[in-house]
């Protein structure tokens, strides 16, 4: 396993100072957009859960009214996700052509969503649906904060266009990481998007729990298990993207099987710990967990937690198969 930590086996080895600087900036951008995406996802899920709640309770009119009021929040999530995709395109840096095409596309989507948000808020203010530009709730500055946030993404898109116009794609010399394989591209994209969402959810579940869980009111085993489940869901994608994908091709092939095995063991242990904790805290989810799991709460079921528990296991099993197939092929 030492070979995984050998700097010579990393795509980051042998970078000059300019490449190192660019790599650092891009990695920071990915992390910042990931965190922003996680926060906006939580807002998205909160608004969505309330709208679903109204529909489930046979009040689609209330759901529609609320969805209209919160549309900037829904769109803000997708806008932030476009920022993450843009940063990720630079992070992967598959080729000059792909970088230019994909980065322009993703940042363009962000800008369009930003324009829609601004126009929407103005129209809603003019027709009186928003009582004021700082109507209050869910934040003191809502919906003005959505407008300011949208302007930020429009600015990013404009800056990127100027950057590419001045040969930015040619000038960019950050390290290249493995491209998305063509075989089964649609399924891979779908699976990775779903994995990303669970990872974002896991990050929020862990991070928010530090602030919104009352550690003094019992349910401690359940709280720890819930935090562990969230952390593992986040770590699987974080380690894959920030560690595994930083290895060079040969080392990656070698590392797949042992990493998958470790990941599977950790995921299974986490799942077992979660169910044991739940067994002893049967009212735990509704007393401390649902603030972190709005969708689970909205659906009135515990089952939704399983998605977060199951995802690392699915990822590990998939990686394990991949590693085994590679090993069999190599032996042949």
């Amino acid at each position: 396993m030492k070979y995984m930590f050998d700097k010579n086996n990393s795509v980051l080895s042998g970078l000059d100072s300019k490449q190192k600087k660019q790599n650092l900036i891009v990695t920071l951008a990915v992390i910042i957009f990931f965190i922003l995406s996680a926060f906006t996802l939580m807002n998205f899920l909160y608004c969505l859960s309330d709208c679903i709640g109204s529909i489930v309770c046979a009040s689609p009119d209330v759901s529609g009214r609320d969805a209209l009021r919160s549309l900037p929040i829904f769109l803000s999530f997708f806008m932030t996700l476009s920022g993450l995709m843009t940063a990720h395109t630079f992070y992967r840096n598959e080729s000059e052509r792909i970088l230019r095409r994909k980065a322009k596309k993703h940042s363009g989507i962000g800008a369009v969503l930003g324009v829609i948000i601004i126009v929407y808020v103005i129209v809603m203010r003019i027709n009186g649906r928003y009582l004021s530009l700082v109507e209050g709730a869910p934040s003191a500055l809502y919906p003005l904060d959505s407008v300011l946030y949208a302007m930020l993404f429009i600015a990013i898109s404009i800056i990127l266009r100027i950057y590419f116009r001045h040969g930015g794609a040619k000038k960019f010399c950050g390290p290249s990481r493995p491209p998305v394989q063509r075989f089964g591209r649609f399924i891979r994209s779908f699976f990775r998007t779903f994995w990303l969402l669970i990872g974002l959810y896991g990050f929020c579940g862990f991070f928010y729990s530090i602030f919104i869980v009352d550690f003094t009111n019992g349910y401690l085993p359940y709280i720890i298990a819930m935090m562990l489940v969230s952390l593992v869901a986040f770590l699987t994608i974080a380690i894959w993207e920030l560690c595994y994908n930083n290895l060079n091709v040969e080392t990656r092939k070698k590392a797949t099987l042992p990493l998958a095995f470790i990941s599977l063991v950790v995921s299974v242990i986490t799942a077992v710990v979660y169910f044991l904790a739940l067994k002893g805290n049967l009212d735990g989810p509704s007393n401390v967990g649902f603030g972190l799991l709005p969708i689970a709460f909205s659906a009135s079921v515990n089952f939704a937690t399983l998605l977060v528990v199951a995802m690392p296991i699915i990822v590990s099993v998939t990686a394990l198969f991949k590693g085994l197939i590679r090993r069999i092929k190599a032996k042949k």
Partner: protein
Amino acid sequence: MKKNLLCIFLAAMMLFSLASCTKTQISSEHLQDYVFTLQYHDNFNILQLTDIHWNVNTSAKSSMTYLDKLLKEADAHIKATQGADAKIDLIELTGDMFMLANSYHLNTFIDYFEQKAKEYGFVYAPIWGNHDRHCLYNPRTLATKFKEAEHCLYFEPTDDLYGRSNYVINLTEDGTKNTAVAWMIANIDSGAAFSETELSVFRDYDYIRPEQTDWYISEHALAGEDVPAIAYYHIPQDENEKAWVDVTENGAQIKNKFFKLEGFADNGNEKYASDFIDRAKDHGLKAAFMGHAHNVDWTFEYEGVVIGLGVKTGDELYFAHIDVNSEDKAVKAGLADSGITENFDLIGASLVTLTGKDGSFELEHLYFNERENGDFSAWVKW
């Protein structure tokens, strides 16, 4: 490196342990701690607001406008029927004040009620609903804010009782603990939900636990065996459904009124039937009011106890639209005797007026809707 990791892990575990090591109070040994007192007078007015449900989609501004009008209407009605000196004395917030809300909502909500408490001269008493726990704020913060608010009555010890907060408000002759209690008001946390097993797909709504009933009985004994009492909590217990079945299927002749347009969303399992009403009715309980099911404000009399859901307050999450031409049996039954002849939404408030120390009280439901061409307001007596 390994040593550092071990130190971090141990420090984290110690923090967790410290956080959970708060001393648990034995409720039966500290009964007085759970008691607030207010001065009793005939025509003591308790306004019940329930299921306000501020959430991420709520426009705080618009919701506060509704509450402004509602309080104004209630105050005007009280003054018109009881005299210029009469006022709302106490507001009972019977749970689900929030759902999927954040700290901004929490702060705005408490600031709002503090401001209105000064304006109208009332105090308010919040009770936990299942959804108040499902938010982006720490429940501890909610508890602290309520405890610190000047006009709020709220108590949350670390004790052996189920739920976060159970407390009583005793109405005494001079408003202190030194004089006789005229009425006891018990505010009970009916919990949230639980799973029967760790593999259960669905969850069951919670119920008032036997130890909470024991605590109520002890508090009542402390107040005085003959003292009449009212209980406020969030989730309906099994008596509501049993009474409804008795009335609609068995033709039982018990007094009942108002609307039942959905289930009670109670636990529904005989195994978890609460003993609260059954035992508390022998210990001064005259009435029990709750919330939870928004399309229900059905009220009935059960062995001398008036039990009913309050009218949902505000238009968040969901509420019923009442069509006076509806052929629906439940709508027709609700409209009978109400005197309402136009369509309206089942939102507003409920008012209990304590008319005497003998346990007598009056109950009225207010249906209040904002409308562009003049707001709709209807008071219907029990």
